[in-house]
């Protein structure tokens, strides 16, 4: 039963979704602090390239991941420094970094394309792996996958159940109020933009070291944009973001399956799903439609439904804050 095709497919969906989950958590931390790091697509490519080359030369995947984190943090630092200290548009800087990361990774990695390299070792967790169905899907994976799921829990707890998390959210929601309470708004933004960037770095490297193994030009192209979409349709929450990433992985798998079964029908339209969902969620956030739906249902259901549907983007997302 462990090797039934459905179980294997689900396990591979979990595996391919992990970089997205990690990057989504990173970008949620960044956006919750009030900064949009638009450079994800380029950052992930740089991290995938750096991670692979360093791991290849040092023969250690972990050193590769560290290097990828450093690159991710560095790109994020440029966005934070440019927008906070130099007061330039964070969108413009992130956007240029996206393109730069794409070209720079192609150039710097040109001598390392399509060669085998070190791989994250498979490690099944004893006992847990024997749980029927769930075991082979979630616990018969490797350290990066476990890290992703632990990260979701930690990020959620940090954001919504701790003091530092409250300070972080104040920077993105009500910077003036937070500042009056003694929160160093720009320090928070620097900190979480850089941490978020480092996580995006891990995500990029987990592509070249764990999923597609090896480096080739544009290996993760497009995924950074997808992550930005998932952050939004996950309502800036790590748990919903995780489901968003898994949903994305599942639609990909489903599309592949359908294409194999019905080769005469084109399934490229499936790729549009995350984007359509993203627009719909943004429409829900921006209009009073949700409120109206909630008013229709019986009174006793209103509160739980409101909790379920409530999505609040950070109010000060993308704005600058001048401390004085």
């Amino acid at each position, binding site marked *: 039963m462990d090797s039934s095709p459905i179980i294997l497919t689900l396990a591979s969906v979990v595996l391919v979704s992990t970089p997205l989950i990690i990057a989504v958590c990173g970008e949620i931390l960044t956006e919750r602090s009030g900064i949009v790091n638009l450079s994800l697509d380029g950052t992930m490519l740089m991290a995938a390239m750096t991670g692979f080359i360093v791991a290849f030369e040092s023969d250690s995947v972990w050193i590769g991941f560290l290097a990828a984190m450093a690159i991710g943090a560095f790109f994020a630092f440029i966005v934070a420094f440019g927008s906070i200290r130099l007061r330039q548009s964070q969108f413009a800087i992130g956007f240029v970094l996206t393109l730069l990361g794409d*070209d720079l990774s192609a150039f710097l990695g040109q001598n390392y394309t399509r060669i085998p390299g070190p791989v994250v070792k498979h490690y099944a967790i004893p006992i847990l792996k024997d749980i029927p169905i769930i075991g082979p899907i979630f616990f018969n994976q490797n350290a990066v996958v476990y890290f992703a799921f632990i990260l979701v829990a930690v990020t959620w707890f940090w954001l919504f159940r701790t003091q530092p998390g409250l300070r972080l959210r104040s920077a993105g929601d009500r910077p003036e109020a937070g500042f009056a309470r003694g929160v160093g708004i720009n320090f928070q933004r620097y900190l979480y933009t850089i941490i978020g960037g480092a996580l995006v770095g891990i995500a990029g490297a987990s592509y070249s070291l764990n999923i597609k193994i090896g480096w080739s030009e544009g290996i993760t192209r497009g995924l950074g944009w997808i992550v930005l979409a998932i952050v939004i349709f996950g309502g800036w929450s790590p748990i919903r973001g995780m489901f968003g990433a898994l949903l994305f992985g599942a639609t990909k798998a489903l599309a592949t399956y359908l294409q194999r079964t019905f080769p005469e029908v084109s399934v490229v339209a499936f790729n549009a799903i995350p984007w359509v969902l993203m627009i719909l969620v943004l429409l829900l956030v921006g209009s009073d439609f949700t409120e109206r739906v909630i008013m229709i249902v019986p009174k006793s259901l209103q509160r739980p439904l409101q909790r379920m549907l409530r999505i609040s983007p950070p109010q000060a997302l993308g704005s600058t804050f001048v401390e004085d």
Partner: protein
Amino acid sequence: MNTSRWFRWVWPAVPIAGALVVTSLLLFLFGAAPFEAFQAMYQGAFGDQSKTLSVLAFWVPLLLSSTGLLITFKAGLWNIGIEGQIVMGAVAASWVALNLEAPSAVLIPIEIVAAMLGGALWAALSAVLKTRGNIHEIFSGLALNSIAIILTNYLISGPWQPPEGGTFRGTAPFQPSALLPLFANSRFSPLSLILAVIAFILVVIALRGTFWGLKLKAIGVNLRSAFLLGVSSEREMILAMMFCGALAGLGGAVRTLSWFDSLRQSISGGIGFMALMVVMLANYRMFLVPPIALFFSAVLSGSITLQLRTQLHSSLGGILTELMVLFVLLFGDWAKLGIFRKKDDDG
């Protein structure tokens, strides 16, 4: 701070030189002599007539898109969705080319109008999502970019696939009368250049010399006070986006009807994103846009020759232009560098 006028004007040359230095270091790192590499790039761009024509052919849609972006940036809009607008222009032109049969004199104007409509409507979607749905144009633009590219892939692999079967590369070549007349044996269409120049002049006049341009500026500088002064921000924003989309769509038509001869998977070739960089590097000064766009086209064409000669990856051209834009963005405004800011703030 009393930095003189000329100093502020000359200062941006410093970050640009910085970009050249970093690119040279990269070349060194990969064992190439920077001077020879830049020389190869120059020869690749202007070495002979066919190369120059190819630079011009790349320049025209880039200039059209950058011109469109001048309008949206003026209104304070970050039209990252321009990439999708180029694609939809190309799709609309292709639809005409595949479905109508007529002599060139009739067909080409229809294609151009269709392309401009396609781009404009795609841009209008982004604008309406902003004014009515409160969605930032960056997010809707990104989504619409992806959806436009997915639609192209669907058309190429499905309904519009060539008779010999879907290859995912493109449609079958269009009928000859649907294609723009080309100059000599190149991909350059003089007609498209004329259209681009007219578009640029009209946009400069509209932005500099009309009341509409003033209204856009008011919206771009301060949306709320413009609204209080009675400028209908919704109408002007949608119009600004649609004009930009129309020019981008025209650029898409030029790509599909002269650079290629069919609808291709990567029809835009990143021209929309590049146009955003052109306008950023020009720092929204209109008359810098055509030369910078030409420079970008030359660097990109030149880097292909560089790859042929030195085996170095052609992404070097992109790196050079992107570093220029990044450094100018970060360090190009002397006043914002804030080297003297501490003193000012304290005083």
